[in-house]
């Protein structure tokens, strides 16, 4: 039991250097079931697109039709260039 609990902290904290991890950590964001949270910077409502950025500051153009209307500051779950869900402000564990 103690061993198990000791393992928890170690296992929950990813090890290895940041650069090693970078490529692997991203997972297969383009085609897998993984999506990433992005924040809306600017909205082009007419074209159904928004400029969004991730928490590292990288930006990309995102289809917003499935979650429209959106406003700057909104948090979206984005997969393959398309926002598939909104993230609510509260985050219940």
């Amino acid at each position: 039991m103690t061993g198990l609990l000791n393992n928890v902290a170690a296992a929950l904290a990813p090890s290895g250097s940041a650069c090693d991890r970078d490529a692997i950590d991203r997972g297969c964001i383009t085609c897998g079931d993984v999506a990433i949270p992005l924040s809306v910077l600017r909205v082009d409502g007419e074209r159904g697109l928004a400029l969004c950025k991730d928490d590292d500051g990288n930006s990309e153009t995102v289809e917003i039709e499935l979650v429209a209307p959106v406003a700057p500051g909104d948090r979206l779950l984005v997969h393959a260039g398309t926002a598939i869900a909104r993230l609510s402000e509260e985050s219940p564990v």
Partner: protein
Amino acid sequence: MKHVDEFRDPALGRVLAGEILGLVEAGRHYKFMEVCGGHTHSIYKYGIDDLLPANVELVHGPGCPVCVIPMGRVDDAIALAHEDNVIFTCFGDMLRVPGSEGSLLDAKAEGADIRMVYSPLDALRIAKSNPERDVIFMAIGFETTAPSTALTLRRAKSEGVKNFFCMCNHVTIVPPLRALLDSPDLRLDGFIGPGHVSTVVGVRPFEFIPREYGKPIAVAGFEPLDVLHAIHMILTQLKEGRCEVENQYARVVPYEGNPRALEVMAEVFELRPHFEWRGMGFISQSGLKLSKAYADLDAELRYAVPGVRVADPKACQCGEVLKGVIKPWECKVFGSGCTPERPIGTCMVSSEGACAAYYNYGRFAREREVV
């Protein structure tokens, strides 16, 4: 990072791991399948399997879109890429998937104009910048990705883009789950349901699992606490004699999914009668093709594709891995003949593939165990 850091809290992880230990019955072996490759990736990345009691086993399911593409479809893609005047676009992981005579990356080295894109929208952008050439987008993925392809095709149609085509390999999650549940090879006690597929399709499509097969399922997020929490929910159901679909990922997944996404998918796609899955054979009504209204954008109608069924290499046991019958390291070529740098099978290609995830994270722990 908001919405992420809270779900990597080691203190809460300790509490959950302790509670999970209290829920298992000694002498009973529990076998849960995580359907989605994203979960497989998280499980190995965070060492979640090391936190579980020895009698709770996680089996990796068929939910990695790259891994389930059969060799024949890769050959079809390469044939399309070699057509005159074609720019062939696909997601990065797909480039390295081996066909019977090499991968798309090999075809690119031979001179085919193959470009990696991050989204279907990128592919459409390439089409608009190259109006004199045909641009084909190789669409792969489950219901998470299909809406993105559908929206882009609708955009291409409405903007009158005439040189954009789609080779559709989208698949749906329920038919392979049914095939697995009907398989005599595998006895499962419960499922960790796919989080982001459910964002689109909702929770309802999984209700057949408890209703018809008597197995509990918890739709889960992808952070370590999400996965532990889902395991906790399934074990609690088993302990209390309940059997239902629970939504661990309610902060993102609505019960009904995303109706607008389902609507655009219904407009752009229709079910194929059969689609071949690597290692699982043909599964009825498990794949999508472009609907009649979008037939003009169908690359397989514009160009002839070989459409030949190619058997998997004999050494490769991706099929057994995808069905959860063997663990990645039990494959004869794992880590020797088959590595992420030179994959033989698809499960070693995508970082969501069980073999690649295990190769990248888990094998070191196992080496320690063996030594």
